[in-house]
């Protein structure tokens, strides 16, 4: 089956319906697998819990960027208008905090948005032009009526035979070895 010169990416298991997929996800999570994922044509409510996914770290990335934008914007304006190039604007103080609010606000928003978009790309390993799963003909069903679990070979608990047996017991209707 598997050719030795190619690395295996993982085992692809197909399930009959969302209910079976959910059950398999729970079992896989319970068995202690970390590097696995579920694929379905539509979002399934409760899947995050079934897979034991932690809340996304994206919020912290956005927070960091937002704070950087806030402090950076404020620092830039304070430095330019009080130290680097103070200009008298209709007699207003050089350190004029209300006047700095719009730029600070906009930079906070801008960098938060950058953090959200690029942080999402980063967390999802994007951009990625090819995924080994596309090597499988059968996986194309995922956009129509296929429900799949993939356990990757990088998982510490991965063992080709035992994992295959595990997925069979979990109710898989079809198993396939995916090559890198």
């Amino acid at each position: 089956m598997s050719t030795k010169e190619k690395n295996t990416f993982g085992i692809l298991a197909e399930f009959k319906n969302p209910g079976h997929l959910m059950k398999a996800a729970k079992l896989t999570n319970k068995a202690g697998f970390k590097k696995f994922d579920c694929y379905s044509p539509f979002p399934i409510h409760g899947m995050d819990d079934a897979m034991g996914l932690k809340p996304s770290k994206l919020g912290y990335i956005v927070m960091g960027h937002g704070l950087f934008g806030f402090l950076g914007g404020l620092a830039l304006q304070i430095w330019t208008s009080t130290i680097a190039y103070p200009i008298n604007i209709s007699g207003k103080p050089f350190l004029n905090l209300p006047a700095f609010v719009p730029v600070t606000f906009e930079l906070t928003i801008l960098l938060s948005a950058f953090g959200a978009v690029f942080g999402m790309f980063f967390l999802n390993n994007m951009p990625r032009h090819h995924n080994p799963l596309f090597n499988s003909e059968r996986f194309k069903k995922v956009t129509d009526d296929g429900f799949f679990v993939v356990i990757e070979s990088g998982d510490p608990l991965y063992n080709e035979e035992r994992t295959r047996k595990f997925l069979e017991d979990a109710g898989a209707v079809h198993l396939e070895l995916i090559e890198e």
Partner: protein
Amino acid sequence: MHHAKLIDSLTYPETANTHKLLFGIAAFAGILSIVGLFTDTEQFFFSYLTSFVFIASIALGCLFFVMIHYITRSEYGVTLRRIPETYASNIIYIAVLFIPILFGMQYLYPWTDEVLLANDQLIADKTPYLNTTFFIIRNIIYFAVWSFLGYKLFKNATTLDETGDWGIDTAQRKISAPGLFIFGFTVAFASFDWLMSLDPAWFSTMFGVYLFAMSFQVFFAVVILTVLYLRSKGLLTNTIKNVHLKDIALLFFGFTVFYAYIAFGQYFLIYYANFPKSILWYYDRLAEGYGTIAWMLLIGKFVIPFLVMLPAAAKSNMKIVGSMAVLIIALHFVEIYWIVMPLLHKGDVSLHWLDFAILISLSALFLGLFFNKFRKHNMVSNNDPKLQASLSKH
């Protein structure tokens, strides 16, 4: 996907005497206030206007939410829509509460003063708009529009409860769409009439949005506390779930930012332009005790709620959201006080017992009217086409 069923009782317990207690408080504080009318007439009218705008703005926020809810065909709010609907249907009584202000116009509004008009050309030029007759006509229009919208939307919704005719849902949208359009204009002009014209020399084109932003922020706080009160009585615990409250909390958070944006925007433009005719309004409101209040508003109405409710977990923790709601409602009153009172007590804050007596009286009346109506109808729109979707939300 599971299909949630309506399992709670939809009728408010008949034995509850909430409304009677509230009416009692309102009457007691009201009688005390009337004593004040004779001892400190001018103070009475300023305190009355402050508390009146406080309850009117809450009702207007409710009316706006109900109309937005209908035209967006939203599902998330179906289970709790009856609460703002009931508040908004009481605008007709708030219209009656406006009448005392008409009798106090000579104390409240300097543009009614002939001597001032003769000496101040700038204000005299505004008399085609700022005159007693037109002021009364305008307010009749505002209250006619709002009372109609509030009453009609409530009436239709309760008819839907009984008949189950889903055509009513379409009718609600047909009322809400033009209703929102007119609402925008009437609220803006009402804010100019009630509050901005207290200082007829001053103007801010943002003032209408400013009052709206305040009203909509406080609306979420009021709805959250009303739901938490019902929960404490064990009502609707399986109908208005945490998912629904979380959505309201998210909007509450969002409109806290919106409020800050508008309130600061108004201040910022006037501060930066620094024209004597417009800056004086803020000059009075940043002096002495009023300056302390201004800082309190900045920190209490924006910085604290923003930082406290920023984490996702905080928005689903009803203890946190509830305490922020209390803070916002209290500071909403303080902000109206801060807008109105510098005209009576120039220079520094001077609290008067009438401020509290009238606030208690009108708020208790407002809540009493709410509970009096709320107990007579289903607490949830049980035949709403989108009720099932709302209940199944998770």
